[in-house]
């Protein structure tokens, strides 16, 4: 009865494969499995309905149009306690994505610094980076989060005794307050356009003269950042300065301590993992490639940039995407310090307020699931494109 287990699957529909001849045990097992899943599901649904009826809980998502009745400490969207609950869902999602994006960006930048230490020829720097990576890989992120929040940012002095920089920036237990430019939305768009110009220019240049400094990604990023800042500074009609007002601080842009703790904890923690991925990918590139670069007369940094990195990137995309998806899921721990992400707003606040446990947790799990699956799908698409490009050459 043994068909070879690794033999390629015959090109027939799944129905034919399910009821394939000669695999009677398989047919029985699969029918039993389907019965167990369907029967178990039916049993759970019936028990749950009975339980809900006994407790007098109505089901359905109608409660989402009710006014929220609570405020959130941090929101990128306009939200008040009078806004409907479905708006709170979107506030939670944007906050989660915001945290994840900030963590990814700073984590990746920090990882490049760590890995350049780790792979440098200096034993001291290499050892220091190895210690950093080992420390962060072997301790829970929740510990880091609680440390940064309770032992660092929440333990900062009060507004009265906090740090003040030139009466324009304040750092205390209410958070970080910095001046914020006031400018029209056209100004923001212009700044963004100017920021991408060096990137596009360097992309063009890379084709003509790959070894020139103008073709470097890191330099063009820095130039873009500088251009962005210049345009903002020129276009700003007024700077909104934070000023002390009574016991608090008014005006300016505020970054609450929870946000700083989360971003710091996430980016330091993630940087250790990303640095390990980078190291693996870079060391995985064949040594002959470096020697070939040297034979062509390239300098060390040019070899890294033009020969090693492009090959390492190809290897690193799948595990890096995995890491990024993990980071999106990791943001859920911020409910431990009461930062309003989707987990805290829907999974805790809305759940306790409305008592709609099943609906709330369904929303939470499906939000994370959809984000994760989307990210994984995009990664597959990108990997496929890279592979196709590699074959074409």
């Amino acid at each position, binding site marked *: 009865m043994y068909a070879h287990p690794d033999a390629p699957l015959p090109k027939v529909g799944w129905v034919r494969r399910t009821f394939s001849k000669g695999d009677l045990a398989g047919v029985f097992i699969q029918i039993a499995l389907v019965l167990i899943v369907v029967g178990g599901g039916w049993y759970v649904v019936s028990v749950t309905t009975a339980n809900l009826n006994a407790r007098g809980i109505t089901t359905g998502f109608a409660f989402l149009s009710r006014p929220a009745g609570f405020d959130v400490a941090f929101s990128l969207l306009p939200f008040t306690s009078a806004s409907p609950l479905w708006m709170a869902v979107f506030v939670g999602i944007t906050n989660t994505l915001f945290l994840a994006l900030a963590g990814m960006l700073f984590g990746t930048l920090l990882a490049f610094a760590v890995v350049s230490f780790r792979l440098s020829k200096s034993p001291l720097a290499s050892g220091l980076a190895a210690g950093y990576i080992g420390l962060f890989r072997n301790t829970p992120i929740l510990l880091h989060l609680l440390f940064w929040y309770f032992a660092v940012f929440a*333990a900062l002095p009060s507004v009265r005794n906090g740090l003040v920089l030139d009466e324009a920036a304040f750092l205390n237990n209410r958070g970080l307050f910095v001046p914020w430019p006031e400018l029209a939305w056209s100004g923001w768009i212009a700044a963004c356009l100017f920021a991408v110009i060096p990137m596009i220019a360097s992309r063009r240049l890379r084709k003509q003269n790959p070894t020139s400094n103008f073709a470097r990604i890191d330099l063009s990023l820095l130039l873009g950042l500088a251009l962005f800042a210049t345009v903002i500074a020129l276009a700003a009609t007024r700077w909104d300065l934070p000023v002390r007002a009574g016991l608090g601080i008014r005006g300016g842009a505020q970054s609450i301590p929870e946000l700083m703790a989360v971003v710091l904890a996430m980016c330091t923690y993630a940087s250790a993992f990303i640095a390990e991925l980078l190291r693996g990918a870079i060391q995985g590139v064949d040594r002959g490639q470096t020697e070939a670069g040297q034979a062509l007369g390239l300098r060390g940094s040019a070899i890294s940039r033009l020969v090693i990195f492009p090959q390492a990137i190809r290897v690193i995309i799948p595990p890096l995407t995995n890491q990024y998806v993990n980071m999106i899921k990791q943001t859920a721990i911020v409910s431990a310090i009461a930062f309003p992400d989707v987990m805290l707003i829907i999974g805790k606040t809305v759940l306790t307020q409305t008592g709609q446990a099943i609906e709330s947790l369904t929303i939470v799990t499906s939000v994370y699931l959809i984000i994760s699956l989307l990210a994984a799908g995009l990664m597959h698409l990108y990997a496929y494109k890279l592979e196709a490009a590699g074959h074409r050459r």
Partner: protein
Amino acid sequence: MTVQAGTSIAGRYKERLRISALEFVRRSFADRRTGAVTILALIILIGAGIPFLRWAVFNADFIGTAPTDCRRAGACWVFISQKAGQLGYGFYPLELRWQVDISMILSALGLLGAFRLARRYQIALAVAIYFLSTFLSFNAFGGRLPWMTPVAVEKWGGLSLTLLLFSIGVGISFCFGGLLAMGRRSKRPVIRAISSVYVEFMRGVPLIAILFVAVILLPLFLPSGAGADLFLRIMVGICLYTSSYMAEAIRAGLDAVPTGTREAAYALGMSHWNTQKLVVFPQALTISLPGLINTMVALVKDTSLVILVGVHDLLGSTQLAIGDVTWGNVLWEGYFFAGIIYFMICFGLNVIGHRIEINFNKRNR
């Protein structure tokens, strides 16, 4: 940034161990770039290291019994030594802590015994030993064995709870994960579909959400009166989650086993299960050992999330101990100590995994 491609980790490690002090300095300043990096590393080391050592060692207080024994010029390690009982056992009654010790010993023996038996291919016996020891260990922890006094879940806590969560989670999710991995490679479409959907779902959702579902929704899903206690609900959540990661780690190994060895086993007339047990899985698990160790380390770290559903493991007990106002501000001491314990467990797991790998490579050479 200059990086060297294609150097093996082991090679670098061996090289570094052999170099002398002079060589160390010479290498640190081999060229201009390396010299700059060395100086930067030195600045970081001295800038962070000296204040840290001052806090943790030179200005710290190690001896004493009360908060007043700390001069507060540095770390107050008296706090840790005085709270050691709470950090280890939570609020478990002092005179009953031997029950926890017995439970820990049973768990360790069970894991060790199961591992030894599994290496001698006695899989069924290994699984039986593991489940028996886990059952006994769990009941010893709760004091439900004869001659023991029951202790409520709310009193459990500390490092012992972290270890209990780990020892139960690791074995159950390994067994379940192995089945799922086989399921995802099965040629029977229904089995394959169900395992794939399960694994992808569990990997797409954060553990906290699963813990919330397990703690809040599980009682709704079960007939009233059949409510499992809080610890069991959390355990179900952790096992369901971890098994999907175990499944992916094992599947990577199964995929990497060469087809020829399987064909050889079938040519010898071995049955399907014997082939899996004696030929495929031993190779697959060796290949996937790094992934498995990573999953186990992640499990240890993930157990800290149970504090979000009201169970106080090592981190939770640390939080509670820190909250004791009579000791004043001992936040740094508490988190530092908890971090060291987690680090030792996870690093220990890495070392054990490395040893197993080296042993295996030696035997197979």
